[in-house]
């Protein structure tokens, strides 16, 4: 179920805080707080990588980022090109068993010489934590081998944030 945006932002402040090791004792005290604890238990990190793949499938370009969010809270990705503008909103959902569902809502604007095209799409897929999901906002061509048609691919990995925190604490302790 959707949680207040305030709490999602608090979480992002916490993420920022983790980068500074010196403040760890302060953070530990804050982490005692029950509300924050349960938030962190639910938080998910989305690692998002956009790739342009030529026919040979070795990417010529990629760009990545990650966002921490809560189930039901969306992460927006915007890809901007010369005659192309793509907005994708990824929303992870999680049930009591920890099973995840990723919903992708895409909007594509393409400016052509004669016309302008607009596409909107809504897709969903069940996924496991740590698994990679691929989103092709422009679709896939079966004839990828010919000419210079490039494929735009967005990869999404979903990780429980708690696990990443624990890994980071463990490596910091070494």
């Amino acid at each position, binding site marked *: *179920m959707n949680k207040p945006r305030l709490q999602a932002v608090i979480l992002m402040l916490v993420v920022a805080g983790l980068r500074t090791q010196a403040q760890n004792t302060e953070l530990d005290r804050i982490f005692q707080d029950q509300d924050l604890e349960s938030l962190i238990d639910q938080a998910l990190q989305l690692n*998002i990588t*956009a790739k*342009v793949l030529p026919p040979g499938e070795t990417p*010529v*370009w990629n*760009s990545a980022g990650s*966002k921490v969010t809560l189930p039901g809270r969306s*992460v*927006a990705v*915007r*890809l*901007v*090109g*010369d*005659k*192309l*503008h793509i907005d994708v909103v990824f929303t992870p*959902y999680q*049930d*009591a068993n920890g*099973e995840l*569902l990723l919903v*992708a809502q*895409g909007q*594509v*604007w*393409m*400016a*052509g010489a*004669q*016309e*302008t*095209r*607009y*596409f*909107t*799409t*809504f*897709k*969903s*897929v*069940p*996924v496991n934590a740590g*698994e*990679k*999901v*691929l*989103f*092709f*906002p*422009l*679709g*896939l*061509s079966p004839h990828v081998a010919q000419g*210079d*048609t*490039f494929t*735009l691919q967005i*990869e999404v990995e979903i990780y429980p944030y708690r696990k990443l925190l624990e890994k980071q604490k463990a490596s910091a302790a070494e």
Partner: protein
Amino acid sequence: MSRSGLRCPSGDTLSAFVDGEVQAPWDQVLASHLQACPACLATVARIRRLRELLAADPLPSPELRPLPEGRERIRPVAVWKRRIALPVPAAAAAALAILALGVALALMAGRTRLPWMSIRHGPTGTTEVIVAAPIDDLEQLFRTLDQPPQTSGLLIRLPAGSRLLMMGEPQLVREADFSRGRR
């Protein structure tokens, strides 16, 4: 005490009067009292000004999100073994977006009426709109559409000069399933 000698009504009665909640014939009695009593008239005027102030205050505009499907649909257990098809309501939200887009495109192309526009709803949740009007500057279009700056999202600039075309139905697949399919 008003000039006519009648006692002034209580504040909440005046407030109710402004709301039109005082029943006949008392509303008439009040109305004539107001004509004779500047103090009560001033109170009523103040309430009316306050109401106007409240009504005129602008709202942040809500964004129409896709229709919530209900908790059971979003968190089922058994259902997740297969793809979930999106029902009509999300298409309704998309339809609104398309309408807004159509108007914006018409403005951009300098036409006062909606340009020729074709809309095709695909069976798997994709809607395609083609407008016969070229647009030089997509960025300007987005300013027209008043897109939010997406400060809480990721912004990725695609490589310059890349020829990316719409090749088919957008796909969302698990990498494991995808690799298997390609081999």
